[in-house]
């Protein structure tokens, strides 16, 4: 039994002539137990993209990647379609030789046997690997489409080719991207996870890959709805400033709008399991006179044409300053989390460019925002890159010696958010 509920957070009081409405919608989804469904639930397709470039031969990376791929195959549910792809300067099918296989004891065994023989050699062409996954996904329309991408190095493709591949894959499948070691590029993998509605993370040690793969596959297997859209209605004369997923990680969806009518736009949210997500929608609406009221937004989630839940943002105009300047703590929290992600990324960019003042200012702001939101994980990561003198005022000093892995971890984790601690 699928059930979605939405909860609205906003300050409904606008000042006289005020236009800006900030709404956070908390969506709680219960999709029941996937796999136990009867009838025509969406099937799932999982493509495992393993970097087998020459650099993977270093350390225990190839060995652990093979082990992780085997764990991923074992975690797949019977009946799901899957493929394992070897990524080099191009991509080669590992299992099956062509198309997709259906998970069973026999295909698991055959796949793991092929995986165990994978050897490193060649270059890194992430766009080409993704395009191979895309071709496989398109053979199974209507399913939940997901890929795992593992790499340890920087993409060897020219940026336009990479961008073109990402654009082609957008909307076709979702992808979680993982980097192992310290030689990959956080920005590159973040481009993948952002375009393909997934996550990005650093795996410090090759030994971490297998457990991470198991978690990712388990999450995908628990998803019950393949393609849910966020629908935003706003009144005539209004402008949508942004639509942003703010949890579990920040994804700006603004430019992904698909116009349904003049006043209605749809935004992709990918597949859903039983989970909670938050969306921050910012709209300018035409002001009404003081005392007037208006519906500023109707925010729904849709599966096909079926509406799963609807939230309404009602606003009223007031000349009472105390009301119109009051800030909704939930909206404030998620705004702060977005600022935190930007501050971390700005700070790291500045540090890498040698601009220490800007880096200290940005990472200081990050420390303050992380402290205010009680984001202890981010504070812990920040402390490996800066010395936090006084978090409440954002006073930090840059560390002289920073482990590159720590900086990459901070960068890659920056878009992951924490839920507000509210009384």
């Amino acid at each position, binding site marked *: 039994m699928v059930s979605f509920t939405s909860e609205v957070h906003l300050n*409904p*009081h606008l*000042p*006289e*002539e*005020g*236009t*800006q409405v900030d709404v956070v919608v908390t969506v709680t989804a219960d999709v029941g137990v996937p796999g136990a469904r009867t009838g025509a639930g969406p099937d799932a397709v999982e493509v495992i993209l393993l970097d087998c470039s020459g650099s993977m031969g270093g350390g225990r990376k190839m060995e652990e990647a093979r082990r992780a791929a085997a764990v991923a195959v074992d975690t797949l549910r019977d009946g799901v379609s899957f493929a394992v792809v070897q990524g080099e300067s191009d991509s080669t099918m590992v299992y099956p030789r062509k198309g997709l296989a259906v998970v069973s004891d026999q295909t698991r065994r055959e796949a793991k046997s092929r995986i165990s023989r994978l050897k490193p050699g060649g270059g890194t062409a992430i766009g080409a690997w993704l395009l191979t996954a895309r071709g496989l996904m398109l053979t199974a329309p209507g399913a939940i489409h997901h890929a795992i991408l593992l790499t340890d190095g920087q993409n060897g493709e020219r940026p336009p080719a990479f961008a073109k591949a990402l654009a082609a894959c957008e909307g076709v499948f979702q992808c979680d991207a993982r980097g192992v070691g310290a030689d990959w590029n956080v920005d590159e993998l973040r481009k993948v996870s952002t375009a393909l509605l997934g996550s990005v993370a650093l795996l410090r040690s090759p030994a971490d890959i297998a457990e991470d793969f198991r978690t990712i596959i388990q999450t995908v297997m628990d998803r019950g709805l393949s393609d849910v859209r966020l629908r935003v*209605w*706003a*009144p*005539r*004369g*209004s*402008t949508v*400033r942004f639509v942003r997923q703010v949890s579990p990680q920040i994804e700006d969806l603004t430019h992904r709008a698909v116009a349904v009518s003049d*006043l209605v736009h749809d935004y992709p949210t990918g597949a859903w399991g039983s989970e909670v997500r938050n969306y921050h929608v910012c709209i*300018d*609406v*035409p*002001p*009404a*006179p*003081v*005392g*007037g*009221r*208006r*519906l*500023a937004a*109707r925010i729904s989630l849709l599966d096909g044409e079926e509406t799963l839940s609807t939230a*309404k943002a*009602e606003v*009223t105009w*007031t*000349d*009472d*300053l*105390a*009301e119109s*300047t*009051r*800030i909704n*703590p939930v909206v*404030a929290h998620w*705004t*702060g989390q977005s600022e935190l992600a930007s501050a971390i990324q700005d700070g790291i960019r500045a540090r890498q460019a040698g601009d220490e*003042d800007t880096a200290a*200012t940005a990472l*200081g*702001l990050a420390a303050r925002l992380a402290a*205010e939101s009680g984001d202890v994980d981010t504070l812990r990561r920040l402390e490996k890159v800066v010395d936090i003198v006084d978090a409440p*005022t*954002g006073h930090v000093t840059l560390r002289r010696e920073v482990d590159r892995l720590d900086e990459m971890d901070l960068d890659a984790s920056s878009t992951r958010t924490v839920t507000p601690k509210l009384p």
Partner: protein
Amino acid sequence: MTVLCPEGHESTAEDWCDICGSPIAPDLPGAVGSPTPNDSASGLPGAVDGGVGVLTQPAWPPAGAPSGPACPVCAEPRSGSRYCEACAYDFDTGAPLAAPTPEPLQPAPPTPSSSASSASAASVSPTAGSGGAGAGWVAEVCPDRAFFDRNDDEVEFPDPPTSRLVVLSGERTLIGRRSPRRDLRPEIDLSVAPEDRGASRAHAFLDHTGDGRLTVTDLGSANGTWIGDDPDPISPGRSVPLVDGDRLYLGSFTRITVRRSH
């Protein structure tokens, strides 16, 4: 099956007009354009029926509002000044910040606005106001050495003295220092490094109405607000008109220069 909304649109939704968002259902009082003095959703402790009927006069203060050291509106402890630092409640008169008294500054509206000029400022809403939507303002915030030297505050002048530009969107901009505890998020946030601790949490408002005028109102800040070379700070609670290029001085070192964003 459609219903007619108060603005005359045919709406398929029966609660709020699906064209303009005006309330339709009978339990949603206060159509756009027909103001109601009492807002049932205000959630204010002790909010009472206005009964006043005068639109510009909200039901305020709540009857029987407690008088004590804390602000009866937002519970912020009183700092000693006449106005609440968090919400600008006036402890002396029991009124919220007086509505700015408009003083005619530039009788002629700005030249017919080109919407292109406002489009360049991303955060300026094209729907803001009705008459001169192109008349936007920006504020340049930067540390000022000469002002700092006059002040003799026991702080360091920021190094480097970074400046930033804030596009004034909506129609009111709060100058102050961010305080999540007090639910205060000023658009011009002087708690951003270099933090100016000489500025009050809720220091002043900039009001920029659709007709292109700009005024500043000090909210009873601890250390005051100066305009240009005037030796005296402006009076708290009174809105003072500003013109293009005016400089505001506040806190220990902050200078805010306002400019039209044409």
